[in-house]
């Protein structure tokens, strides 16, 4: 049986009909990435300003970390199903919202940490030069904090791409559809092919974002090994 499954997967992946059409790999991958982009955008729109405000407030920071840790105990799948049983409805929307919720902690904690760790002297120098708080934030602190913030965005994005496959369980789209329908119809070649494609998409996202993060980090800040330090070691799994 084992050999034939591998063969089936190989044949399925080599069939042009698997790739084209409204339920083909290409269309599903495009849907997958669009959903992921929407989720990251929602999460970033909420957590970047919030992180900046909290870093300024010098209070409630501890709460941020605690909340971020607690979200790890809530399964993404559970939140997704809870959304799906409400007015949000099922399909892609609850998945995007659930993925966005879980993308908030890495972006928020990294933004907060990054802005808090900007050298106090630098901030004072900016104030001494007559910069307003806003200009100091945009012109001085954000560029210095950027590598850490980018690391948070990257962690969040990779995690979101890995979460979106769950949409298939609530009638949504994305590449998870291949796995879920394959399991339901007991076509294991398709299941295996779907699993490989989802894994490949996640690894590809990680690689592209890693390269992107390097490219946009100012050269002067590069030698600092941002990644190991910045990545939340246990972003919630999905």
């Amino acid at each position, binding site marked *: *049986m*084992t050999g034939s*499954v591998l063969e089936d*997967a190989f044949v399925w992946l080599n069939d042009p009909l698997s790739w084209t059409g409204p339920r083909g790999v290409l269309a599903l991958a495009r849907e997958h990435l669009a959903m992921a982009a929407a989720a990251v955008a929602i999460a970033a729109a909420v957590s970047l300003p919030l992180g900046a405000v909290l870093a300024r407030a010098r209070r409630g920071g501890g709460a941020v970390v605690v909340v971020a840790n607690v979200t*790890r*105990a*809530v*399964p*993404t*799948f*559970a*939140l997704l*199903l*809870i959304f*799906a*049983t409400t007015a949000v409805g099922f399909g892609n929307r609850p998945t995007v919202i659930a993925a966005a919720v879980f993308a908030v902690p890495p972006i928020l904690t990294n933004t907060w940490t990054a802005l808090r760790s900007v050298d106090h002297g630098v901030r004072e120098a900016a104030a001494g030069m007559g910069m307003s708080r806003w200009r100091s934030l945009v012109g001085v602190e954000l560029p210095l904090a950027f590598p850490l913030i980018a690391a948070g965005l990257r962690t969040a994005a*990779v995690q979101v791409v*890995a*979460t979106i*496959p*769950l949409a298939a*369980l*609530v009638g949504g789209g994305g590449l*998870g559809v291949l*796995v*879920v329908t*394959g*399991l339901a119809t007991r076509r*294991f*070649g398709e*299941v*295996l092919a*779907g*699993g*490989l494609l*989802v*894994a490949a998409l*996640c*690894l590809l996202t*990680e690689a592209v974002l890693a390269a992107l993060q390097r490219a946009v980090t100012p050269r002067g800040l590069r030698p600092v090994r941002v990644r190991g330090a910045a990545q939340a*070691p*246990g972003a*919630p*799994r*999905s």
Partner: protein
Amino acid sequence: MTTSPAPDPWLSWSYVQANWGDLTTALEQHVSLTVQAVAIALALALPLAVLVHGHPRWTAVVLGVTGVMYTVPSLALFAMLAPFTGIGRTTVLIGLVAYALLVLVRNVVVGLQGVDPGVVDAARGLGMGRVRTLLTVELPNALPAVVAGLRLATVTTVALVTIGVVVGFGGLGQLMFRGFQSGYRAEVVTATLLTVLVALVADLVLLALGRALTPWQRAVRT
């Protein structure tokens, strides 16, 4: 004539009473899968970490590979395993062990790396062999990192078990999905709360265990 929609409460005690059997079965499955997965992963992670410890190149390889593998979502992993290990408990368990292993190996390796070189030197100066140094000096010193890894791995595993629904063995996730399919909110919410409760209890137990195992840390703090 209008018919009012059937009541669909978020929580309902009568649900809990009527489905006590299902709840305990799912809870038992959830807990046993978690405990088994973390125990197996720890049994594999300790020797593996010790093996690569002290070889910077191997360490870099292990940290790199585990980091990359951690990006693969569980749904994809279960999908890749199911054709070979069948639909059922084994597939879920293998997947859970894999993820817990990734977390644990990283933490044990980092923990061993973080041991003060002066302490290791002192042990050597006392005439300890490599094995004795490892067992009586390095591992105890790395214990806080190991426990931190265990806590992280356990909480992650508790949440991950729910994805086991794709192969029919998701513990409390099974109830969540059933509740979703039949549009019964109370079932989804009850199973979710129980899952979070399991994660929190497990975390507290491991926290207490870590404190008990490292009495010297408490002495320093006070």
